[in-house]
């Protein structure tokens, strides 16, 4: 399938303009790029957990979704969608449905890394043919920027504030993409909206996967990360270039890097966002070194995984 821009812009849009997401929000860009990877001859069922994307695109009696859509609760997009997928398989087998459907969930890091992790794990393990996309903005943005399991160490959030006795979030983030890969499902990838061709290609692979696929996409949030709203793509690109958010895929167990990067110091990336501003003052500066060490260690580990025979 093509990833030429001239072809991609011809694709149908499933998320209509006029939704209530913030200007400069990464989530709608994630949705558009992922759905550009959908084959033309399939119908889509989209699921959201509770979150920014859900509340901003489905304000009753309107909907921004130009396709079937379901929201159930916060922690269960994966299990809800797994039920829809299984019912579809049953109805298809009985000849009650003729069309080919694909099932795609878009969940934030709150609904995916944390409260929804069990439901996600269960759905991946059961082998449903569904794509779960995490639009990862590294905190609970819908409720007003609280820390999540995806929040980077040192980050300011409203529940990991800095103060006399705190330099932001104390703990490092969990590696959800690796956790998904540990389910030994056919396709797992990490992507970024700054690398749209790479992300569309990953989406195409996920749509072609006869089984579960998981894609973790960095989705900058200018409200929570504290940068000018027009810089969303730029900030995402800096994350990739610093290797704090490397791009890779795990295809049938084979790990490979999908973007060539000239690794930049993470400090430049951190400097671009207000959520890390306190790290550049006084005692907190030592956190910068720890973050860089963490990035280096994770990057080394990833490179080794991608070199493995």
């Amino acid at each position: 399938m093509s990833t030429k821009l001239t072809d991609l812009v011809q694709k149908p849009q499933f998320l209509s303009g006029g939704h209530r997401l913030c200007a400069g929000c990464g989530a709608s860009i994630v949705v558009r790029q992922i759905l550009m990877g959908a084959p033309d001859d399939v119908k889509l069922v989209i699921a959201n957990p509770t979150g920014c994307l859900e509340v901003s695109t489905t304000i009753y009696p309107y909907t921004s979704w130009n396709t079937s859509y379901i929201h159930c609760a916060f922690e269960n997009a994966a299990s809800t969608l797994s039920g829809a997928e299984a019912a579809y398989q049953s109805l298809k087998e009985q000849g009650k449905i003729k069309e080919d459907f694909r099932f795609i969930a878009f969940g934030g890091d709150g609904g995916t890394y944390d409260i929804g992790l069990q439901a996600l794990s269960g759905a991946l393990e059961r082998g449903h043919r569904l794509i779960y996309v995490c639009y990862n903005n590294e905190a609970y943005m819908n409720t007003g920027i609280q820390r999540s399991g995806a929040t980077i160490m040192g980050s300011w959030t409203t529940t990991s504030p800095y103060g006399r006795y705190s330099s932001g979030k104390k703990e490092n983030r969990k590696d959800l993409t690796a956790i998904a890969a540990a389910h030994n499902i056919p396709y797992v990838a990490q992507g970024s909206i700054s690398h749209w061709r790479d992300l569309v290609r990953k989406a195409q692979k996920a749509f072609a996967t006869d089984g579960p696929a998981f894609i973790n996409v960095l989705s900058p949030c200018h409200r929570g990360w504290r940068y000018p709203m027009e810089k969303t793509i730029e900030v995402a690109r800096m994350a990739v270039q610093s290797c704090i958010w490397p791009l890779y895929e795990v295809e049938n167990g084979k790990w490979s890097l999908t973007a060539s990067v000239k690794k930049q110091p993470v400090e430049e990336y951190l400097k671009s966002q207000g959520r890390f501003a306190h790290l550049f003052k006084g005692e907190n500066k030592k956190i910068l070194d720890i973050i860089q060490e963490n990035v280096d260690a994770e990057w080394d580990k990833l490179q080794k995984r991608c070199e493995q025979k």
Partner: protein
Amino acid sequence: MAAGSKIVAIVGTDAVSEAMRQINPDLVAAYPITPQTAIVETYSQMVADGLVKSHMVAVESEHSAMSAAIGAAATGARVMTCTSSQGLALMWELLYIASGLRLPIVMPNVNRALSAPINIHCDHGDSMGARDAGWIQLFSENAQEAYDNTIQAVRIAEDPGILLPVMVLLDGFIISHSIDRVELLDDEVVANFVGEFKPAYSLLDVNNPVSVGNFDGLYGYYFEFKRQQEEAMLNSFGVIKEVGAEFGKISGRSYSLFETIGMEDAEFAIVVLGSAAGTVRHEVETMRAKGIPIGMIKLRAFRPFPARELAEAISRMKAVAVFDRSNTFAGNMGGPVFIELRSSLYDLEKKPLLVNYVYGLGGRDLSIELINKAAAELAEAARSGQVKQSINYLGLRE
């Protein structure tokens, strides 16, 4: 006996599994929990043996069981799940979503006490906890009724004027694990009775894609949606009776909202639901044979609560005892059936004395002696016109 029916000796969980096999839903999503486990196991085997067309989703929790059921029902599929106790409690937030989205999911719940202390035996605390979740709740006296209720639940849930999920309740172990005489209908008779589900909306309708579970916004329609759910509950009174009467035609066993025994000439009566109704009936009939003017009401529908008809049925009584297999911890307000019934009587000019017996928590046995003790106190209240103590614990070690 209806043509094609057969009489078998099976436990309650098998009676439910047989009903599920005959209903043959498109999808079952369930998680095992004592004492419901055998339903999931037996149904999995039925799927493995190709006896049903159902797809089975063996989820990783009850939360996911109800979530998957909701996702599946939104496609327009006929969907069932089943649970007990902690499993039902884990589903709690989703029970409201299933009813709020008006998805006609049918769920047998094998009644079991809620922790703590952890206890695997019967009481009604689990489903009573879900009484305000917008589900229809039908109680069963024995394995036969669990079977019959499961089949009828499909028709009630899917009625276009209702579209609410239905919980079929059967007492843990007492019904679920006891071998009982059960009359099973012919497969085809059940298939014809439940018919095909024709959903108004489906995620898989390519000509009319829908958004399900939208955000109600700041000035939305939440209040109106909730009022419509109450309207559906009101509609269900009639539909439960119609479906119960129609079921009588294919089985010889008709159902309504509740059943009365000896109420036409009784002076006092016991109201009870679940398996205890069998034991109470035996004692009531024994007493009536001795000329004691006692009657009985076996409540089948707890949701909707047939307040008006129940009030009518007991308004002539001098005294009524309500048996509750759960408590509300409201500060000596009594069990949920008692509270509802007392509220139902408020507008009557002439009303009976009402007394509550909380019994059987955590599977404590309800013996004949205990029923007779309560009946004797009830007779005394009817005679004297006074209730000694309105909230009583029957069979409590004190």
